[in-house]
């Protein structure tokens, strides 16, 4: 997993609630058996005016000029600012892969859907939940300063703007530790293989029909 410590980048505002994973990466791209290459199709239905597909070249497609990620400098954004319940719907990790592949390192929103939230950590994409009022304020700042940059510090658990800390955020210690060190959690779990085996042995006694 990618290490995340500190990051500074341009913020792209996506001003709608309940952005679902179908919107982040439409189903036709889920046919891929790879983990990479989804970036050009992130938000495909909003980003292009014609229909795309896994076997369609994006280069020749009609761009939707009104969509925020098609406008400079937001096409270079690395932090996404969104509204509540971001990432709801389908469990597809492809949504996180698409955001990551586009270049995003963090998403800021008042709230996230659970599965998306989990998936993000597995890929070094940092989901930051902030108070709705703070998010509102960020949307205001972004509209006032074209190409506003924010800095995210995972170690300190803060978000700052031009040197001024504007919010701090919560994160579980374990997740923070894994992300700061880029740890592979399968290897971590396998360190407890004996405990898993013990559990299984006990369970075989109490619930043999499960084995």
């Amino acid at each position: 997993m990618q290490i995340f410590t500190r990051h500074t980048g341009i913020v792209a505002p996506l001003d709608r609630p309940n952005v679902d994973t179908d919107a982040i990466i439409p189903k036709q791209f889920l046919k891929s058996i790879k983990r990479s290459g989804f970036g050009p199709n992130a938000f495909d239905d909003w980003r292009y005016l014609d229909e795309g597909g896994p076997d369609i070249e994006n280069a020749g497609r009609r761009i939707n000029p009104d969509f925020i990620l098609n406008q400079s400098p937001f096409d270079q954004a690395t932090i996404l600012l969104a509204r509540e319940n971001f990432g709801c719907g389908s469990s597809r990790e492809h949504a996180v892969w698409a955001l990551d592949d586009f270049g995003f390192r963090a998403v800021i929103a008042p709230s996230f859907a659970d599965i998306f939230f989990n998936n993000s950590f597995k890929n070094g994409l940092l989901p930051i939940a902030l108070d709705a009022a703070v998010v509102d304020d960020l949307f205001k700042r972004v509209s006032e300063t074209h190409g506003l940059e924010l800095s995210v510090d995972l170690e300190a658990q803060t978000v700052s703007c031009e040197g001024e800390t504007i919010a701090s955020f919560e994160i579980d210690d374990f997740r923070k530790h894994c992300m700061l060190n880029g740890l592979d959690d399968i290897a971590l779990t396998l360190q407890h293989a004996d405990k898993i085996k013990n559990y299984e042995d006990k369970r075989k006694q109490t619930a043999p029909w499960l084995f």
Partner: protein
Amino acid sequence: MSTAKTLYDKLWDDHVVRVEEDGTALLYIDRHLVHEVTSPQAFEGLRIAGRSPWRSSSIVAVPDHNVPTTDRRKGIQDPVAKLQVQTLDDNCKEFGLTEFDMSDERQGIVHVIGPEQGATLPGMTVVCGDSHTSTHGAFGALAFGIGTSEVEHVLATQCLMQNKSLNMLVSVDGEVPPGVTAKDIVLAIIGKLGTAGGTGYAIEFGGDAIRALSMEGRMTVCNMAIEAGARAGMVAVDETTIDYIIGRPYSPDGEQLEQAKTYWRTLHSDDGAVFDKVVHLDASVIKPQVTWGTSPEMVVDISAVVPDPDAESDKVKADGMRKALAYMGLEPGTPIDEIAVDKVFIGSCTNSRIEDLREASKVAQGFKVADNVKLAMVVPGSGLVKKQAEVEGLDKIFIEAGFEWREPGCSMCLAMNADRLEPGERCASTSNRNFEGRQGQGGRTHLVSPAMAAAAAIKGHFTDIDKLD
């Protein structure tokens, strides 16, 4: 401190292998369901790391999202989809896993075949790389959807790192009026909770109206827990649960069954168990539901009109409503029962079981699909559901009424195969998501029950099944 536990507490405690200092737990997984879309990258990861599945017998795999619902003998036409299904077949062969492949009569939607085979049992932890895994909670199991990295984690370790959710009880009290189904109950719940209302919670559904549901109805309710934001939904075990399980291929028998039953009967919330949140709904006032927007919380009674964003005081919400109405091509104030449909889809892991097909066929019997409806299709949830429906003659009722009778799979629930809406087309659908583009780019989805979908097919517009003569 009280020792009374909720059902969720019991299921959780029974599966904890170890706990980190911050409370993150390593949770043991009993059943791992696998489908073709969210697994290839997980198997690939396993291979690259030189690992193999921890417990192959916990896995049941099936292709469902990409499979064609028309003539199977021709195989899959789309080469990209074909490769994905082939990859699942190959992975299952390589790692020695049970798979019901496309030619197997037990093939079907992963959340339909698990319970059908008895592979979903009370007291289990059930996971699948699919958000509607919440369906299996209907059996008093802890079942939730996971991402592909987690699929790989379960394959390699039989465990998951999890943080415990909060407890929520949704109690549907009293009796529903005739014609009101499990789908209407759950849509009404989502309408009340909102799509994020359950985020961070595990929901137990209780109350007389839930107890009165069949297992299939309970599955419909739990299926959509995720649409209220809850990763897991569940219903306590009772005799309805146990009766459903007995005799299924994967379920225990003999002495083990007796032992299991004793355990299963403990799988309910104790008297005095404390929930972090309790929500009550009065069943007697629930009417057939129809969604009007692009989120399942955008739902009203069949007798209502399309709501007006100007009447919404929350600005973010009102903007969301305006975007939804523009996408759906609807005007505020339009009576729901005047909205005409172009297509009708009866299927998906929410509503493709035998009881769903019986309900829809009862409405369709003796009628014809309206002229303005371009396509009305029925897609059974599994090969075995299809076979049972054919034994009962339901296929004939549908075909005579002008519906298409298809092969099992996810089909137009998410339109990964050839079954999809064209831009602007409006569909009455028994599936679970009405997101933009869900059933095809530009397609407009209205979520309803099977009976309501069949009625919309016959009338050509939404209608109260009570008013169908």
